[in-house]
C-alpha cells in the first residue's frame, strides 16, 4: 500500500485496473495451464477411485465401438459372401439345347459374369424329382413342365444393386429368355440385419454415452462438494463463474481422455486377440479377408468422444451444483 491518500480518494477501482489486456491474456492462458495441471494432479493423488472411474468410462466407451467395428467387419465379409448370389435365367419353351448351350457360352463371355451353367429341362426335372422324392408324380407327367435354366454367377465387381439390375436388363434382351430372377434374398436379409444391427449400435452408443455423462457428472458433483470451502472463498474474493468452473471442467476432460484411451487400448487388444482365429476361420472358406482394426481416424474419434463427453458431463454437473454454493 504505497499510494497516497489523495489518489485513494479519487475514483476508486482505478487503482486495480493497471492490469493490461496483454498481460491479462497471458495470465489467463497461464491459469488454464495451471488449472489443467492441478486437476490432473488431484486425480492422480487419489489413484484408487480415479482408476476405477477411468476403467468404468473405458468399458462404457469401448462397448459401442466394439460393436461398430464388428459390424464394419461383417459388412466387409458379406461382400465376400456375395459371390454366392446367383441369377437364374429362365429360357422360353422350345429353345433347343444346342441354342441354349450357345447362349450360356455367350453369357459366360460377358465381363460382368464369372460363370454361366446351362441346366436343361430334363436335368432340371431329374434334380427336382431327386430333391423332392416325387418321382412317381414326375413320371406321370405327359410332358416336362420345367423350362431350361442358365444359372449365372456375376463377378465380384458387379455385385452392387445397380450393376445387378443392369445385368438383369441385359440378360432380358436375349430373345430366348423368358424371365430373369435374382436370387438375392438372403443377401438382402443380411443387409437388413446389418441395418438393424447398426441402429442397435447407435442406440447402445447413445445409452452408454448417457451413462458416461452420468458417471462423470456424479464424480464431478462429489468433487464440488469436497471443494465447497474453496469455491466459497473464490466467489467471495471476486472469482467469476468461469473461474470457479474451470478446474471442474478440466477434471471432466481428464476423466474423458483417460476413459477414451482405455477404451482404445481395450479395443485394440480385443482385435489383436481375435484377428488370428477369425482369419483362420475365414480362410476355411477360401476367401481372403483381413480383420480391419481401428484406423487412425477411428482411434482419434474414440478418444475425442471421451474428451467431449467428459467435458460435457462436467459442464452439466457444474452448472447444476455450483449455482447452489453461494457465499
Amino acid at each position: 500500500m504505497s499510494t497516497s491518500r489523495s489518489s485513494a480518494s479519487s475514483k476508486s477501482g482505478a487503482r486495480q485496473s493497471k492490469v493490461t489486456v496483454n498481460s491479462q491474456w497471458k495470465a489467463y492462458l497461464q491459469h488454464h495451464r495451471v488449472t489443467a495441471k492441478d486437476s490432473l494432479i488431484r486425480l492422480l493423488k487419489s489413484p484408487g477411485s480415479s482408476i476405477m472411474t477411468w476403467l468404468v468410462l473405458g468399458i462404457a466407451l469401448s462397448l459401442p465401438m466394439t460393436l461398430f467395428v464388428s459390424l464394419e467387419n461383417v459388412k466387409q465379409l458379406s461382400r465376400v459372401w456375395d459371390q454366392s448370389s446367383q441369377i437364374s435365367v429362365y429360357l422360353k419353351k422350345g429353345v433347343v439345347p444346342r441354342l441354349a448351350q450357345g447362349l450360356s457360352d455367350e453369357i459366360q463371355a460377358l465381363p460382368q459374369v464369372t460363370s454361366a451353367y446351362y441346366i436343361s429341362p430334363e436335368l432340371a426335372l431329374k434334380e427336382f424329382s431327386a430333391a423332392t422324392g416325387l418321382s412317381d408324380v414326375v413320371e406321370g407327367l405327359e410332358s416336362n413342365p420345367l423350362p431350361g435354366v442358365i444359372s449365372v454367377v456375376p463377378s465380384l465387381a458387379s455385385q452392387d444393386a445397380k450393376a445387378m439390375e443392369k445385368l438383369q436388363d441385359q440378360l432380358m434382351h436375349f430373345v430366348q429368355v423368358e424371365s430373369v430372377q435374382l436370387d438375392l434374398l438372403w443377401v438382402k436379409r443380411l443387409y437388413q440385419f446389418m441395418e438393424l444391427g447398426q441402429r442397435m449400435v447407435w442406440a447402445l452408443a447413445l445409452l452408454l454415452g448417457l451413462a458416461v455423462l452420468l458417471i462423470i457428472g456424479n464424480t464431478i458433483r462429489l468433487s464440488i462438494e469436497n471443494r465447497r470451502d474453496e469455491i466459497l472463498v473464490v466467489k467471495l474474493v471476486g472469482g467469476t463463474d468461469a473461474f470457479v468452473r474451470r478446474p471442474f471442467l478440466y477434471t471432466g476432460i481428464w476423466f474423458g481422455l483417460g476413459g477414451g484411451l482405455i477404451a482404445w487400448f481395450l479395443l485394440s487388444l480385443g482385435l489383436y486377440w481375435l484377428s488370428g482365429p477369425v482369419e483362420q476361420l475365414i480362410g476355411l472358406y477360401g476367401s481372403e479377408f483381413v480383420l480391419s482394426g481401428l484406423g487412425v481416424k477411428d482411434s482419434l474419434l474414440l478418444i475425442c468422444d471421451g474428451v467431449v463427453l467428459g467435458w460435457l458431463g462436467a459442464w452439466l454437473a457444474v452448472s447444476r451444483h455450483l449455482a447452489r454454493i453461494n457465499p
Partner: protein
Amino acid sequence: MAHVRFDNVSKSYPGGHHALSGVNFEINQGEIAFLTGHSGAGKSTLLKLIMLMEKATQGQVLVDGVNLSRLGNSQIPYHRRRVGVVFQNHQLLFDRSVFENVALPLRISGYSSRDLERRVRAALDKVGLLKKEKQSPIELSGGEQQRIGIARAVVNKPSLILADEPTGNLDPTLSAEIMRLFEQFNDVGVSVLIASHDLPLIDRLDHRVIGLKDGRLLNERPAGGL
C-alpha cells in the same frame, strides 16, 4: 461522494426475520468506522449487503455511487474485487501455502506471475508474515491466521476494507495489533468498516462508532468524540 451509503435499508431473511430495518448512514472516502451491537444486532448482515452476499429487501446500498441492486450477477465478481473482506473465521484454504492463500485474489484478477509475486510479498510484509509464506496456514497461530486473511483482503489494493469480528478469537494484545494494521491501511486512504463487539478495544481507539440494536441504527459516536 460517500464511499458507502445506506438509504433506508431493510433486510428480512426468508421466514420473515427482520435483520435490518430502515438503516441510514454514510461512510466517506478514507474514513474508518466501527460497527457495534449485541450478537444478532445485524452487523454481519450489514457487511454482507455491501459485499452482495445478500440483497436488501428495501432501500438502496450504494458503493462509489453505484446502486448495488442494479448490478447483474455477472458484475458481482468485479464489485467484490474492489472490496477487501476479513472474516472472523478467516476462511483460509488449508490445502495450500500462505503465499497461495494471499495470491488467490490476484490469480482471479488475472495478474502475471511476476506482478503477483511482488504484490503478495508486499502484502505479507505488511502483516509481518513474509518469512512464513511457504508454510501451510494450519501451522500458524490464530493471530497469524487472521493476518493472512488481512493480507489476502488487501493484496488487490481495494479502496474499501470490511472486517467482520476480526479479533473475535484473539487476546487483547493480538487484537490491538490487528486493529493497528487496519489503522495503517486507513492511514494511506483506504476506507475501513469493522464490525466488532469488543467494546473495551473500541473505546480505547478514537474512531467513529456506529451502533446497531435489533437491526436499527442506535447511536453514533463521532471520531474524536472521547
